[in-house]
């Protein structure tokens, strides 16, 4: 039984797990593309995320931020169905409609480091694949770190 493969992408393709309604009903979570936010001179970050036609997948489905802070995301729905975007943000999660062939920008604020989710929270968009991750890199401020020698990490 093959449990490991050197080419994960190829295995996903062979098994039909990276497309809708081939190997399984939906698309395996977190099998989409990885993208990085752009950082402006003031530290404010921007990103563009699309919904791929008939694939119920965000592109990128994993968005990486260099640090916590303010992020402007332009969502683009290239699909022929209506979806939406629910994204965590300090204060309150942000939510917007994404009708077929529409685009709109959302501003969110996130602490770092850590991993956050975002999704289209209608129907079972989430179960089919429209759930993604926003990954915030970096460290907490020096003032918040423990007064102790550096410790080993996994």
């Amino acid at each position, binding site marked *: 039984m093959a449990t490991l493969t050197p080419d994960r992408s190829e295995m996903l393709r062979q098994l039909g797990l990276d497309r809708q309604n081939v190997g399984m009903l939906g698309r395996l979570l977190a099998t989409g593309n990885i993208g990085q936010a752009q950082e402006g001179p003031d530290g404010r970050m921007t990103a563009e995320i699309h919904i791929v036609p008939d694939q119920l997948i965000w592109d990128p489905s994993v968005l990486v931020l260099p640090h916590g802070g303010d992020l402007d995301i332009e969502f683009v729905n290239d699909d022929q169905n209506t979806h939406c975007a629910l994204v965590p943000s300090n204060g*309150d999660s942000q939510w917007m409609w994404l009708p077929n062939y529409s685009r709109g920008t959302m501003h969110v604020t996130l602490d770092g480091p850590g991993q956050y989710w975002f999704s289209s929270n209608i129907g079972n968009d989430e179960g089919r694949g429209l759930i993604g991750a926003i990954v915030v890199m970096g460290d907490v401020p020096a003032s918040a*770190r423990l007064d102790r020698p550096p410790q080993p*990490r996994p």
Partner: protein
Amino acid sequence: MTTIEYRQAPPPVDFGSLTTATGTAPPVVQGVTYERILDARSEPQNWLTYYGAYDGQRYSPLDEIDTGNVTRLTPAWVFSFSPHGLHAGQSTYAFETCPIVVDGVMYVSGWDGWVWALDGKTGQLLWQYKHAIPFDVSLCCGNVNRGVAVANGKVFVCTLNAHVVALDATNGDRIWDVTNGDVRAGESLTIAPLVVKDRVVVGSSGGEFGVRGHLDAYDMETGERVWRCYTVPKPGEPGSETWPAEGEAWARGGANCWITGTFDPETNLLYWGTGNPAPDFDGEVRPGDNLFTDSVIAVDADTGEIRWHYQCTPHDLWDYDSNMECILFEQDGRKLLAHFDKNGYCFVLDRTNGERVRIFPFVDRITWGEISPDGQVTPRIYPDKEGEEVHFYPGPAGAKEWTHAAYSPRTGLFYVPVQDTGARVARRRREFKESIPYWGAAVIVDAEDMAGSVSAFNASGEEVWRWRNDLPMCASVLATAGDLVFAGTPSGTFVALDARSGEFLWQFNCGSGHHSSPITYSVEGKQYVAVPVGWGAWVEGFLPGMMGGPHGQAMFVFSLPEDIDSAGGR
């Protein structure tokens, strides 16, 4: 080929705007000062601070609901909430909070960064705040938060990613936000803050990940940190002689302060419990008493210095945190505190100097060891040899978990939620790595042969009555001047007992287990009893026999019946 014309999507909105929230609350917190909190019991219509008052008694002078009419108690309103999308601890979230009430407005924290302001009379949602929490934070014991604090127009709340946040009490807008701890080190915050003078005091979580515990005070207006008190000393500091001289065991020593302390303005001391040493069960890597783990510490409220300490379980090998409350009371003219510890013993101390006054057991089965009345600790059963399993009582959740006892000055009795459950533990050494659980053992808590009770003790340590429950009691209790004791069970039943006899008087099935702190308050002269309901958290540790219990997530509020108000709403 046709070019597709894209349209502008409707603008994004706050998700909370798509609820019935009105968006604003009356400015009732503007007038909440330190002086009012000092004298909190003189305004029994309110529940101004975590324990109701600085003394930690969880006692209310309200007496409209009493032993004669409690059987007529009925739900007044329910506030229910549910998660959206993913969140940390998807299977372990719980509603552990203790509500705060000011002049008819209830302030409530939920799991995963939620704060709500509710109308205390109707349950109407006034505003909500949501802090975005990463779902990969290190949590030993579930996605929980134990409550907010209020003062000077602000609501203070801690977050699981170790931030302390001040909100505008009228609309939930963020005023300041500071990072308290290092999530990469496994730190988090679950505590309800305590406002003392012009400061907000919070203690850190993360003892199961080998952090170094600390207590911090922040300026209420600016969020600037005023002092930090580490609860494990560095080499050379007082108490460091109780840690190995070589190595860095102290740097991973635990002693986190994750439950709110009490405060005596006359001694100017905060009385705070500290948590287990790390690793929890492998003592061989940290020989010594390991101060200030498993201790009651008295901390100068102005400077953060530890004035005295009393260690309840020296060199802990059983995960016997001492975080639970220190109830302040007077007896024979002495200023005392009572602390019901995980290890099965109650410690009565002179709160002016930490002198031991009395020690007595409050649970039937104690096999880990023995503490004599003069304070001598004799360990008997503990994980020692690698891989060799031992069984002891109480298990790691303790004879009483963090959930709180109450004290009624009318009856002179302490009311204690008791868990009588054992566990099997085998030492399993592991290397320390930041953010990875650092227990040093394999642990299986009993799911059979367990019991629980609300037990009433007088200050001399004599058990006066006991109300027995088949399952351990895992929620805080509440005492009132109506001579009632309220307590929630793991099965979901909320009960009222006669405070003098323990007689069972009333119950209501809330549909999910209780692991929170009920309160009482009044609006326009009418008394209400509120209990957050929502099973979850570290269930595998305190009651694995109920791992499959429904989470639930609702604030139940009860009152005596009156004519039904048929007014509409949104």
